[in-house]
């Protein structure tokens, strides 16, 4: 098994785990969002890796019939996923802004403490 040759997948794995770790371990809502973005980016990278054809160039049609192209379909899919990721980030940031306005903090443990006080009323 060619371990070094599959370095793309190693990068994907490292990024994915780093993203998930930040997502789980950090209490700051913005940092969580960074983690989610890193996590999603690793998936984009996975798709691009899947679409790579050895010796293939960017899938832009040229007249030479001997040119090998990479598979354009994963690129198209991931363009959609990137847009979805941007939308998710935007919604999350907007929520964070409103949470900050409502609670005065974006630390999850402080928010939880504030909620716990409120619960009994």
């Amino acid at each position, binding site marked *: 098994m060619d371990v070094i040759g599959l370095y793309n997948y190693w990068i994907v794995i490292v990024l994915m785990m780093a993203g*998930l770790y930040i*997502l789980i371990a950090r209490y700051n*809502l913005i940092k*969580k969002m960074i983690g*989610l973005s890193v*996590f*999603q980016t690793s*998936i984009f990278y*996975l*798709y691009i890796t*899947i679409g790579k054809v050895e010796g293939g160039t960017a899938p832009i049609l040229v007249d030479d019939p001997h040119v090998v192209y990479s598979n354009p*379909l*994963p690129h198209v*899919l991931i363009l*959609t*996923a990137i847009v*979805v990721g941007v*939308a*998710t980030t935007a*919604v*999350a940031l907007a*929520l*964070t802004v*409103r*949470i900050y306005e*409502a*609670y005065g903090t974006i630390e999850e443990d402080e*928010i939880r403490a504030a*909620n716990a006080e*409120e619960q009994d009323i």
Partner: protein
Amino acid sequence: MDQLPALQVMLPLVMAPLVVIVRHPKWSWALATITSFLACWVSWLLLQQVMDGSVIRYAIGGWEAPTGIEFYIDRANAGVALLVSGLSSLVLVYAYHSIQRTVDKSKHYLFYAGWLLCLTGLIGMVITGDAFNVFVFLEISSLSTYMLIAFGSDRRALVASYRYLVLGSVGASFILIGIGFLYAATGTLNMVDLAVRIPDSESPRAVLVAFSFLTVGLMIKAAVFPLHGWLLNAYHHAPIAVTAFLAGTATKVSLYILMRMFFSIFGDDYSFGLMLLNWVLLPAAIASFLIMSLVAIYQTDLRRMLAYSSVAQIGYILAGISLATQQGLTAAVVHMFNHGMVKATLFMSVGCILYRVGNTHIPSLDRLMSRMPFTVVAFIIAGLGLVGVPLTVGFVSKFTLISALLEQGWWPAAVMILVSSVMATAYIGRVIYLMLFREARGSTVTSHGYREVPILMLVPMYVLLALGLYFGIFGSQTLSLAEGAASTLLGGYQ
């Protein structure tokens, strides 16, 4: 007539920007409601067409299936689409008054536009025949759901929405990874084509990874027991109309995709034979309905109690799926529909209480019967349906489920279901007792009498209740429809 599948998705999608342009609160509500009813009518027509077991394949852009994206409609998903659009229509009628209490008037149009987009996403997820399209529609519905939840009246709704966003995005990303590996292993995204190509894929390991990621991702979206963390706060703090809509549809749609994946794409030999999935799903299902029912008994807030009970009910559906037999799947499909209707009715009646009483704290419901009789009667009948009393829909599905379990000889699981039904009796019965009999302890509560809620809130609630009773009394109709759906799912793609 040929264009119906496309219309199903395009109707709400076209109307959402129109609602944004119209902007007037009342008109945007009217537009959204009419659209939803039209979508419901379209899905009814579609169900009529596929009732005999035929299949509609609609190629988008005229590109035929393996190349292009298609809508794939058969008995299994036409019913789910009807459930989604039907519930959306009824709850939208109900939402008119309910929303005015929680959402600022200047933002109504955004609320209804978000609702229509959510409807687009859910229907699209159900009827699409393309694996990647599932992800796209899933995200359309999820993003608008986050927005709808954040409309909740108090600030905790924002946190609930954020939490759902994080977990939902992780779930959706897992699904995306799964689809990526499936594409890498088979070179296709079309579901029918996937089902053909998976058995002789060159890399079984990639298929295995795809299967695992898809299962976990969809289980997060469906709020299956250990992964249900987002659901409780989201249901509790969202505007009650949104809760009623989501409780009836969002998790059900994810469960439908789960079934489609297990049985149609991978095939039950792979999912349950090779992967031994029932040893994962059944414990999760049993834990979910036992633990969640137990926790529900101790809740002091009506909305939270019903949220816990929702997770428990998802456990029943999952138990039916984990059997992987015709009868088990029938039970799962029936319960999916029944629980959708019952839970939506319950949340609607809770919304009526919220509208008049101002909170859903259970101790403040003393002798509510004398003040809001119609709401309380609806709550009681739907509550009995949740427990599974004969003549209600709950009975039909629980009976089918238990007999399916006994057929397989899994009688301990059947006993567990009975135990959890007793618990359900406890938590529903406690509330009913308070509403009917208990004298108010504080003098403040009785001093101002509550009136009944506006007629526009009562009518959709009672329509849904009547439907529930109808399907409960004439249970064989639902059963035959569900049997058809189950055999379609089990049979895979033609």
